[in-house]
């Protein structure tokens, strides 16, 4: 090993009492050591979480129940004007639970009315259960109303229903409280993946951001770990290290004996 190179450096210091930095292999080795000491844990966590995220099958993580878009049934459909719908911000007509429904956006919120009767559709536990049963083929364990999203449904906003299924994956499905629209389903595969994603993005509270000061500072520091390490590769190998290669290649050469040392 060539670590000795740096050790023999003459003590060239005393410029304003400060040691002048000499860019010797020893210096880079020291940087590598100290950055490793301070940020090594995070480098290990990045490697482990990266390895786990590469290992966990992404198709399982992203898997969502199929929702068929039923063709609209027009007979008996009432026009918005007939339903007393006047000035609105948005209007959407689609099928839900076998009936045409209007989704009306007014003053920043959504409500739904039955397209055949004009009656408002209340999104209650019974409706959510019905939709959940039609979607996932597993018994429902629990249904609860949340007034704000949890970590699993963090991509969405507003109050929502959570339906827990008794399947092997421990699936939870989320439905918007205002329209009953299916939002997302999460299972144990996603939960495991999300834990490693948290370790990777270092956003331990919200798990979403990877642009926060902590990760920027640590990421900057780790550049010195990898940079010096890469540089040291060129200083750490000697011709001797590669002798086994040429020996093996030699025609009729002796087979390599067990590594000494």
């Amino acid at each position, binding site marked *: 090993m060539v670590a000795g190179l740096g050790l023999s450096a003459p003590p060239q210091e005393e410029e304003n009492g400060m040691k002048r930095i000499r860019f010797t292999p020893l210096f880079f080795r020291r940087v590598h050591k100290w950055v490793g000491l301070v940020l090594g844990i995070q480098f290990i966590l990045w490697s482990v979480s990266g390895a786990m995220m590469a*290992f966990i099958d992404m198709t399982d993580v992203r898997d969502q129940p199929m929702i068929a878009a039923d063709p609209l049934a027009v007979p008996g459909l009432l*026009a918005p004007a007939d339903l007393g719908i006047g000035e*609105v911000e948005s209007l959407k*007509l689609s099928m839900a639970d076998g009936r045409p429904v209007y989704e009306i956006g007014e003053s920043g919120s959504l409500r739904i009315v039955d397209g055949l009767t004009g009656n408002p559709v209340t999104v209650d536990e019974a409706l959510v259960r019905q939709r959940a049963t039609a979607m996932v083929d597993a018994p429902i364990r629990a249904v609860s109303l949340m007034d704000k999203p949890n970590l699993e449904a963090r991509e969405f906003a507003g109050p929502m229903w959570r339906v827990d299924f008794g399947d092997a994956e421990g699936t939870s499905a989320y439905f918007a409280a205002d329209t009953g629209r299916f939002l997302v389903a999460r299972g144990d595969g996603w939960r495991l993946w999300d834990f490693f994603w948290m370790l990777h993005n270092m956003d331990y509270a919200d798990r979403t951001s*990877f642009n926060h000061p902590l990760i920027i500072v640590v990421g900057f520091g780790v550049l010195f770990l990898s940079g010096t390490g890469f540089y040291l590769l060129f200083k750490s190998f000697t011709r001797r290290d590669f002798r086994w290669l040429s020996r093996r290649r030699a025609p009729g050469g002796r087979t390599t004996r067990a590594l000494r040392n």
Partner: protein
Amino acid sequence: MKIRWPLFVRRLHKWLALVIGLQVVLWTATGFYMVVIHIDRIHGDHLVRPVERLAVDMVSLVAPGTVLAAVPDASEVRSSSLLDRPVWLVTSPGGVSLFDAGTGERLGLIDADQAETIARSIYTSDEEVASVSLLQEAPMEMQGRKPPYWQVTFDRWDSPTFYISPESGELISRRHSLWRIFDFAWMLHIMDYDDRSDVNNLLLRTSTWLSVAMALSGAWLLVWAFPRRRKKKKTA
């Protein structure tokens, strides 16, 4: 044979680094890029105006049920606007069709002029449009999204590009140089050089575990890397 652990681990660390070192440099460098530039900027949020929901009076519009006759297998009708004109967007397995919500008339596909006008109306800056073209083949940066679509590029250093659906006139995607660099960094990060999307590829799986082994052997070496200080502490 007695194994001299510090020497063995040092060699292990060295050889693992020889195999995986370049990729580790790429991981840290690309990771740093992705961390430093905010993801909202990468997504191009600064390029587009927030959508203003204009109030529309349903009484003055053609009822959504009536436009359905023209698209029998439609699954959804949704209100929208096309250059300040209220429209019905009808979704069916065949795609999306547009109807003038005032007259009920079916609108044709968006043409180049309309695409350019739409792009200008969304764009937050005021550079000139550099090019408008109808793509029949998905460019790399559209990540396999099904063409055709209008590609409108603005004349700026980061060539902001909007992709607009010819069927609905809606903005499908926006791209700019920082996004393109991010995508390249992402490719290097996940080591999927073909599609830039498969995070479960064998190369990445192997490399990441090699990196774990390298990191752990490095951590183990730290114990031996500060010998004098350790002794001092013990005697103190």
